[in-house]
């Protein structure tokens, strides 16, 4: 692979990592949801993200050209080789936390994927076109939940506020650009994340403001996911996610 292909490969794996990690977190709600319909809904959102991860990984393997498959990428890399942004890997915590995180990434992906549809890379544009429709639907579900919890009881409001406090330091990383991603932007392949932050802030502040909830502007930004530096949580998650493939490599259902 030349430098350009390496950057593309890195980009595709990173987007796949974001999706597979969030997907696994959401799937942890399976059989633990607050009630049956929500349990199923969270599982379905997880399914959309795993589909997204597969598309990015499959294309990454094609670019790499070494005959690896999406399973090799997902199941046989260690924590330090995963390059997902940290917000995706945080534990599911309580239902309010899961929904606030989902609301944050839904707002982000609706805009990010919309712009990624203009990618000069046809496959990336096609994946974005498919995924953006799913994210718009996810947002239609996460927004009423945030409203309902924020305007519900003292207890549900407290949980929303706790979730906001917990997440505020992880939001900034969504908008961080690295040199290699910047070079893909210049080739018309990737999207400049930094330019999305202002609108994201405005949208989220306005939405939460309607329920009289304030989202604090954090100065502290925790970063490192794209370089493989993770929170303590990812390793534990991967050990569970990868256990069967690591124990019996090549196992098929």
């Amino acid at each position, binding site marked *: 692979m030349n430098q350009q292909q390496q950057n593309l490969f890195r980009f595709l794996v990173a987007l796949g990592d974001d999706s597979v990690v969030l997907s696994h977190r959401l799937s942890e709600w399976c059989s633990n949801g607050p009630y049956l319909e*929500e349990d199923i809904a969270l599982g*379905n959102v*997880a*399914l959309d993200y795993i*589909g997204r991860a597969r598309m990015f990984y499959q294309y990454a393997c094609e670019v790499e050209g070494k005959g690896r498959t999406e399973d090799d990428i997902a199941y046989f890399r260690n924590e330090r080789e995963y390059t997902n942004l940290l917000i995706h890997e945080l534990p599911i915590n309580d239902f309010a936390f899961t929904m606030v995180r989902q609301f944050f990434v839904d707002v982000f992906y609706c805009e990010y994927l919309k712009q990624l549809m203009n990618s000069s890379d046809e*496959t990336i544009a096609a994946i974005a076109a498919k995924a953006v*429709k799913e994210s718009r*639907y996810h947002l239609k*579900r996460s927004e009423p939940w945030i409203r309902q919890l924020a305007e519900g009881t003292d207890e549900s409001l407290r949980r929303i506020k706790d979730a906001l406090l917990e997440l505020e330091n992880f939001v900034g990383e969504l908008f961080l650009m690295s040199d290699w991603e910047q070079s893909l932007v210049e080739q018309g392949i990737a999207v400049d994340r930094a330019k999305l932050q202002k609108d994201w802030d405005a949208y989220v502040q306005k939405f939460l403001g309607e329920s009289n909830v304030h989202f604090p502007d954090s100065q502290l930004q925790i970063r490192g996911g794209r370089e493989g530096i993770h929170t303590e949580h990812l390793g534990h998650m991967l050990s569970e996610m990868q256990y069967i493939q690591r124990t019996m490599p090549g196992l098929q259902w």
Partner: protein
Amino acid sequence: MNDNIIPTLNPVFAKRKAYREGSEHKPIWDLLDSVFDPELPGLTIWDLGILQDVRLIDGEWQIDVTPTYSGCPAVETINADVKAALKAAGYDKVKVNLVLSPAWSTEMMSPVGKAHLKSINIAPPHEEDRVQCPVCDSSNTKVVSQFGSTACKALYQCNDCFENFDYFKHF
């Protein structure tokens, strides 16, 4: 017959229909009408709108299928069913391609497909998500959950006859 009603097909499906009718591989398209979506009994992959193209390249049949939702687990079964249906008719060299573009939408569904959904008590997709109860046809319905038994459906309840039903989401 009411002369004031102009029969229309939505343009997306009309284009698909014209493409199929203009194809030189009519027998293959027809054979594939025996392949059903595994999670929607009786709905063919053509009526669902995911069968996109049939081509013959270097002696190999290339069947293009587009997934409804990116994580839809039915995709693998459909691939196997397509191959089995063609093999049974004597076509051995078959490749099923998963194509992402154009992205599937409910506009690609056939009118027959939508009517079939209703007949099995699934409310067919509606442009403005105006959901009609498949049992009593009332539009007085409410959403119970945005996701139902599969990724492509939502759960609804009729406020008039109280039937719980699946709604095939407009997408």
